[in-house]
């Protein structure tokens, strides 16, 4: 009975980060606030650089399972640099990304993921939403939720919704470019 259940309806996870509220952005875009309501996702994966306590608290209201990793601007003590979360058949590894040099480099990201023996790397820091397949693993980046990810540039606000199934991961990429656009990608589990 439990097996059947996993296949039919996947659990949902929100992947989001690099808010930098209020330092680099006043608030989450209203269109995103409208979409992100409690009790729809089972997990929240935050890549870091939340900015203020209120935003972190708001994230915790969205689901019962919120996972945070530390960004370079986060001043919270209890948050780890990296985190591993197992969701069904998927081993998710989280790291903000400022620790991996060169920034946004796929090879260094892949090496890190391989060392951690994970299936999917959840990482941020670059401010650009991206979903990449490398060898049999995946690197996913939700971009910046507010568009304010560092001092020099702004980017298009974005986040990801993941639908976990036994043999695949459905990724929904939400971007705000005038209006909310949603792209989908299906990632089969390869081991």
């Amino acid at each position, binding site marked *: 009975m439990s097996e059947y259940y996993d296949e039919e309806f996947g659990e*949902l996870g929100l992947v989001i980060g690099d808010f930098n509220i209020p330092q680099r952005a006043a608030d989450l875009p209203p269109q995103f606030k409208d*979409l992100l309501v409690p009790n*729809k996702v089972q997990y929240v994966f935050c890549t870091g650089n939340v900015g203020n306590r209120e935003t972190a608290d708001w994230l915790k209201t969205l689901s019962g399972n919120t996972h945070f990793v530390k960004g370079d601007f986060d001043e919270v003590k209890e948050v780890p640099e990296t985190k591993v979360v197992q969701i069904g058949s998927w081993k998710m590894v989280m790291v903000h990304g400022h620790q991996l040099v060169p920034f946004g480099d796929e090879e260094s990201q892949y090496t890190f993921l391989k060392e951690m023996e994970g299936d999917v790397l959840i990482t941020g820091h670059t401010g650009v939403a991206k979903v990449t397949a490398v060898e049999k693993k995946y690197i996913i980046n939700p971009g910046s939720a507010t568009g304010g990810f560092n001092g020099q540039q702004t980017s298009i606000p974005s986040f990801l919704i993941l639908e976990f199934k036994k043999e695949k991961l459905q990724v929904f990429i939400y971007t705000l470019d005038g209006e909310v656009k949603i792209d989908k990608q299906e990632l089969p589990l390869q081991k």
Partner: protein
Amino acid sequence: MESLFSLEYLIQQLNTKPIAGNTRSSIEKFLEILDKPKINLNELKKLSNQGVPDDIKGLRSLVWKLLLGYLPADRTKWNSTIKTNIEIYEQFCNDLIKSKLQKQMTESNEYEDQELQQSKKQDHPLSKSLQSIWKSFFDDQVIWEEVEKDTVRTRAELSFFVSPTQIPNKYPVYFRTQCRRERRLAKDYEHRHYDVLTRILFIYAKLNPAIRYVQGMNELLAPLYYVFYSDTNELFLQSVESDAFFCFTILMSDAKDSFLRALDDSQDGIKSKMNNLNTLLRIHEIEIWDNLQKQGIHPQFYSLRWIMLYLTQEFELHSVFILWDSLLSHSNKNEYLLFLCLSIIKELKPSLLQDDFTDIMEGLQQVGKIQVERILQITSQIYQHN
């Protein structure tokens, strides 16, 4: 030509169990009425009004099904009625409890509409669009969760509802609620009685969107389900869930006005019912009425729950069964209910004539100590039914 439903399972119990004299003759009277090709419902109602003995498993279950009009008086039609209803209920479950995948598949079969195909492609988990399958799934999940919150703690004083049912489950549950997640983590994959209650109330909510699910409806379902499960007849043991669903629906046709917020102020709503009881009180027991007024004890402080939940919360379950034996035997249940309440008030007279608000409120908490047989006795004296 259908055969006569066999009552052997009841008769056999009478012949093998040690049963006291008066109970035995009462049971014999019931069997005399039931063991006919066509049941005289008026006679059954008269007898049931005094209570149905529970020494014979399945007797009350059968009587209630007849009193509610679920089973017809024609005994040759019972088998087909039960079997047809099993099928209908199963159809409801298959149609209304769908996984996201099933919803997608259904819609693509029904509609070749271009527009719909387009919106399906654009569908996503956070969608608020009315065509969104995700939204429809989440809306269902909300209902399921509302129901589940109550069913898991139905009659918590008993172990029955939290125990696993012996009847295997045919319907997978696709919803991810807090409760189900916790059960999964604890590796609890059992199908428990409260899971059946949840499903019944979910189906009712989906079929009756004007009322959906309101807290307390689980308390009206619980006695029906418990009684139907306590049967020994082979067919009835297969049909427990569908019978409980249909009988609950029948009962709700009388009870639902109390649950509808929109009717609160109307002449069918709960406020009006409480006022009617209060009026009866003034007519029959002016002394009590007067004192309660004086002390500021409003009807909603005590009678709201009595009326809305058909007295299920005031007594232990087996006493509720006896009250319902009588209640279900009356065609105007709402009216008869008020007289049951009036009898309760009469029994509490000494407490209710006290001159302290707190003492009176404490007195009103003692309803459960009254013998239900006494309540029925008083009610039979005061209830004039046309």
